[in-house]
C-alpha cells in the first residue's frame, strides 16, 4: 500500500548568516498511512517545521527523500492532494478572506460558481462567514489562523499538513477545529500536524512522532501510550502480599496500605490477593497519565 507520507533518511541543512551550516533534520525516517492522524511533536528547534517544509518542497533536502502518496514531495501532482497550514502567515492584509481564498482556490484549479460556493461554505464552516468581506488586516491572530485553516481545506485535500495548528485559537476555536478535523478524518483525509498542545494531540491523534535535534526519538500509538501512562492505586487493609506486582507501597495508617500499579492486569491481580487474604478494599483509583510529563521526561532522556 502507498504511504500517505514517507520520509527516508531525510537531511535538511541551512546556511546561517555567518556562513556556517546547521543541520535541522538529521536522517529522519518515518511514514504515515492513509487515514491516520499523526501528531508531530518536539521542542522548539527540533526540526518539525523543517520536515514539514521539506514535505511541501519549500526546502531541498541535502540527502534522503520524501514522498506524498508515492509522488515526489513538493511536486505539482503531490501538492494537488495536500492542504498546508504554515506556522505563521499574514494572508495578504489588504485582501478580504473571500478574496484570499478565491485566489488560492484559483491556483488550486477551482473556477466560477464552484469556487465561490466552496469559499463561502468554508468561511461559514470556519466561523468567518460574517466577516468574509472585511480586510485581513483588521483581524486578530486567531481569526487569521482561521483564514489559514480555511485555505488549507480548499479543494478537500486527501492529506492535511498543519504546522502549529492551534496557534492563536481560543478554547472555543480549538474545540471547533478539533471537530472539523475529526470530520475530515472521518471523510477519509490523513492528518499530519505539529503542535505544542499535547492535549490536542491526545484528543486527535492515533499516533505520535517525537523528534529532538532533528532525529526521531519516539514513535508511539496514542492509545497504547495513554494506557501505559495511566496509574492505578489501590488502598486496602489486611496483610495481602504485593510481591511481584509492585514495589510502590505506602503505609498511610496502621493496617492500611496504598499500592500503585503500572497496569490494569497487576491491579486486578492485587485486588484478587486482597480478597483472598480476607482484606478490605478501601479505595481504587485510575489516574490518567500526563503526556506533558512523558514528553518532558523523554526529551530529557534524549538530551
Amino acid at each position, binding site marked *: 500500500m502507498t504511504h500517505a507520507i514517507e520520509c527516508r533518511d531525510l537531511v535538511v541543512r*541551512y546556511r546561517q548568516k555567518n556562513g556556517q551550516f546547521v543541520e535541522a533534520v538529521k536522517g529522519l525516517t518515518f511514514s504515515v498511512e492513509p487515514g491516520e492522524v499523526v501528531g508531530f511533536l518536539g521542542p522548539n528547534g527540533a526540526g518539525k517545521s523543517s520536515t514539514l*517544509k521539506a514535505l*511541501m*518542497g*519549500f*526546502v*531541498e533536502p541535502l540527502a534522503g527523500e520524501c514522498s506524498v502518496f508515492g509522488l515526489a514531495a513538493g511536486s*505539482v*501532482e503531490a*501538492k*494537488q492532494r*495536500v*492542504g*498546508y497550514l*504554515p506556522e*505563521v*502567515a*499574514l*494572508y*495578504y*492584509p*489588504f*485582501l478580504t478572506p473571500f*478574496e484570499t481564498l478565491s*485566489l*488560492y482556490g*484559483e*491556483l*488550486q*484549479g477551482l*473556477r466560477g460558481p464552484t469556487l465561490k460556493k466552496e469559499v463561502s461554505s468554508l468561511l461559514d464552516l470556519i466561523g468567518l462567514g460574517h466577516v468574509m468581506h472585511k*480586510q485581513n488586516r483588521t483581524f486578530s491572530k486567531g481569526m487569521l489562523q482561521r483564514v*489559514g485553516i480555511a*485555505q*488549507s481545506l480548499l479543494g478537500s485535500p486527501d492529506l492535511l499538513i498543519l504546522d502549529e495548528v492551534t496557534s492563536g485559537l481560543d478554547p472555543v476555536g480549538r474545540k471547533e477545529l478539533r471537530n472539523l478535523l475529526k470530520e475530515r478524518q472521518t471523510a477519509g483525509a490523513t492528518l499530519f500536524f505539529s503542535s505544542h498542545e499535547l492535549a490536542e494531540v491526545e484528543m486527535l491523534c492515533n499516533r505520535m512522532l517525537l523528534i529532538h535535534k532533528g532525529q526521531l526519538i519516539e514513535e508511539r500509538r496514542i492509545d497504547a501510550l495513554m494506557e501505559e501512562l495511566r496509574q492505578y492505586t489501590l488502598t486496602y487493609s489486611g496483610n495481602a502480599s504485593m510481591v511481584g506486582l509492585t514495589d510502590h507501597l505506602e503505609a498511610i495508617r496502621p493496617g492500611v496500605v496504598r499500592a500503585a500499579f503500572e497496569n490494569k492486569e497487576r491491579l486486578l491481580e492485587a485486588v484478587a490477593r486482597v480478597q483472598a487474604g480476607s482484606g478490605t478494599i478501601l479505595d481504587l483509583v485510575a489516574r490518567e497519565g500526563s503526556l506533558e510529563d512523558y514528553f518532558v521526561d523523554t526529551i530529557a532522556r534524549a538530551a
Partner: protein
Amino acid sequence: MKFGVWKALARGVVLESVRRKDLWVVAILGFLIMAGAGMLGFFGLKGLETFAKDLAASVLGMFSTVMAVLVGSRVMPEEIKNRTLYPLLARPITRFDLLFGKFIGATWVTWIAFLLLAGLTSLALAMFQVPFEAVMGQYLIAKMLGLSVIVAVSMTLSVFMTASAAATMSFVLAFGSSMIIRALVMAYESSSPAFQVVFKFLNAILPQYGLFDLGSRAANGWGPVQAWVLGALAAYALVYSSAMLSIGWLKFRKQAI
C-alpha cells in the same frame, strides 16, 4: 500554459496595490502636475508647446520608472517577509508560475500607474492647447514596453538581494544605464581589441532603456516612427525580460524559503 494561474496571481498583486493606495500616490502626483501646468498657463507660458511636452515626458518617465522599480523590487521580497509565499507555493503551481504571475501583476500595476499619470498629463497638456498626436501614442507604447523591462530587472535583482539593495541597483541601472552605454560607445573606438570585446559584452547585457524613450521625438514633433521600430522594441523587451526572469527563476527554483 497556465493563463488562469498567472492571471489570478497578477490580479492579486493589482488588488493589493490598489487597496494599499499605491496608485493614489500616482494620482496625487498627477494632480500636482496639472496644478503646475495651470500655474505655468497662469504666468503666460502658453505657446511653449515643445517645452511643455518635453517637461511632461520627463516627469512621466521619471515617476513611472520610480514606480516600476519600487513595485518590481518589492513584490517577491514582501511575499517572503510576510510569509504569504507558503500558502501560495503550497498550491499545485511551480515556482516559475509564481514568479511569472507576480511579474505580470507588477507590470500591470506599473502600466496602470503610468497610464493614469499619462492621462492626467494629457489633460494638463490640453490646457496648453497641445493636441494628442500619433507619436505620443507611440511614446506611451514604447514606454510601457520599457517599464516591463525595468520590472523584470528589478524583480530578478530582488531574488538575489534584499528589496532595498535591489531597488538601489535598479535605480542606478534605470537612470544610469544610458549614460554608461554612451560612455562605453565613446570609449570603444580608442580601446584595445580585448577591451572592445568587454565593452561589446557590457553593451549587450546592460538594459537599453534609452531605446524605449520616444519623449524627445514626441516633444519636438518629429513625427511617428515606423511600425517595425515598435515591433523591434517589443521583441527586445520580450527577449530581455525573458532572459532576466529566467535568471531569477534559476536562483528561485531551488531557494529555501
